[in-house]
């Protein structure tokens, strides 16, 4: 359980899984400011420096901890400056791709909560398909280009998004398997956040060492203005995904959806 209430809060997840929503909700808290920073690139830099560990120790009299401190101070200087500008004492950084550097953030900030917003892959894909525009345009994902007719391209995109979701979910067991990371890892369901925001946030704030302020609902944030979680965004895939699109998602994500409890065990593929 996270005890410190000054350590920065990091939020990540796959795109369109509710990271921005949670960021705005955190920002509505009177003691928390949600900022954007060059976090991932700096954490990746630390990884690069950390790989030179033996060299740094031998030739530069630098211990791993010294290198870690230099990089965590560098990141903090960005986060805290943004926090000071808004007059709040605690900083949250909510960017989907933070998920990719959760292990690094866990090492750099041992007291920081790492909140992973998890959403049903089918809704994520429906949301991303809507966001990425007409399927008639060329689309490239991980070096492969989706080609063919418009429906074929949409299916290709859906498959790519679902595969990305599955890959990202691999972070869950990785975080849970490492005791140093699991103690600060906070998986949070988007569906809970939307259906029962008050109870979900109360529980979340308790886990990150903050008092829940019910005055923050409805959420009014300097980052995103009024935020009204849309109940119809849960299960939207039933309206938005046709049989082909759903089939593509399930081909990729069925097993992981099952593991995460998004599918009843008897549901056919």
């Amino acid at each position, binding site marked *: 359980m996270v005890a410190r209430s000054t350590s920065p809060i990091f939020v990540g997840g796959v795109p369109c899984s509710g990271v921005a929503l949670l960021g705005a909700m955190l920002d509505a808290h009177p003691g928390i400011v949600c*900022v954007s*920073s*060059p976090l991932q*690139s*700096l954490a990746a*830099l630390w990884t*690069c*420096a950390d*790989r*030179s560990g*033996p*060299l*740094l120790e*031998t*030739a*530069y*009299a*630098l211990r791993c901890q*010294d*290198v870690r*401190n*230099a*990089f965590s*101070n*560098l990141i903090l*200087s*960005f986060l805290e*400056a*943004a926090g000071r*500008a*808004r007059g709040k004492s605690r900083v949250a950084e909510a960017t989907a791709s933070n998920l990719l550097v959760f292990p690094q953030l866990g090492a750099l900030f041992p007291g920081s909560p790492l909140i992973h917003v998890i959403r049903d892959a089918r809704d994520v894909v429906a949301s991303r398909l809507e966001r990425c525009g007409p399927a008639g345009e060329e689309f490239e994902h991980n070096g492969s280009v989706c080609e063919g007719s418009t429906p074929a391209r949409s299916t290709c995109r859906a498959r790519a998004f679902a595969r990305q979701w599955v890959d990202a979910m691999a972070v869950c067991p990785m975080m849970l398997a490492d005791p140093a990371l699991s103690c600060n890892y906070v998986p949070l369901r988007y569906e809970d956040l939307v259906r029962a925001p008050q109870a979900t946030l109360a529980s979340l704030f308790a886990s990150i060492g903050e008092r829940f302020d019910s005055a923050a609902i409805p959420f009014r944030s300097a980052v995103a203005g009024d935020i009204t979680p849309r109940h119809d965004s849960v299960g939207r895939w039933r309206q938005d995904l046709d049989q082909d699109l759903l089939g593509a998602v399930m081909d990729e994500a069925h097993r992981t959806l099952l593991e995460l409890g998004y599918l009843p065990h008897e549901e056919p593929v």
Partner: protein
Amino acid sequence: MNPHDEEDGEWRDPVIVWGAPRSGVHLLAAVLDAHPALVSGPELSFVSMMVSRWRGIDRILDQRRAGKGVSRAQARSAFRAALRELLTPLLARTGKRCFVYHWVGGHVELDAFGELFPEARFIILLRDPRDVVRSLLHCKWRCSRAGRASGEHDLGAAAGLWVDSMKTALDLAPGLERRNRLMWLRYEDLCTRSNEAMLRLGAFLGEVPPEPAVAPGAAALVTMSMEQAYPPLRSGAIGAGQVGVWRRLRAEDIATVEGITASQRTRLGYY
């Protein structure tokens, strides 16, 4: 005066040594490491990446202008502080004043280093491209940055690497030259007129001239790397044995190298 004196205390902006592969960068870094005020170490690729990242962030902040949160000055100060934190233990251990950062080939943002470290001094090493190519081939050149496989003998690629490196240098140098922060040093001068080169170096750095020799410990230190397998650096007095070795190449190979490097070679005075 360094505008960061107050925040940086005793910190002195580094000396930056750069050049194409096999141009004497390690040799000079090892020579400078023996100087009573200067200390060098193995190449640190992540430092170049940090400087490059700072440049990218600085540009974003500049575009935002009225953005809330971190200012350009704060970002610059944060990066300087991080680099200082990483290099200070070495300065403390050796009791020296200034760090010599060296970097061989590849894409380098010398101008970004210059902006982040306004008092830094730059030394770009030049070497006859024919000798560079001959040396690259002779030492079984392995250049992971250029994506070349180990032991590949590719005359054209070696010459191309020199051309690319010199293009970078020639593009970025004018900004540093205008502020008298750049010294061009020919490998040939370093090796054949060492004492004169040391006097020039001393005057440029505002220090007593270094000794024209490489200590065994420094030779091993500056060629240590987690990424590259650099050929060993000879210790002892600097010699002229590697100047003009290109004449041992076959005539057609010399012609190929001269063809590829013609433009930059003549511009830099290697006829």
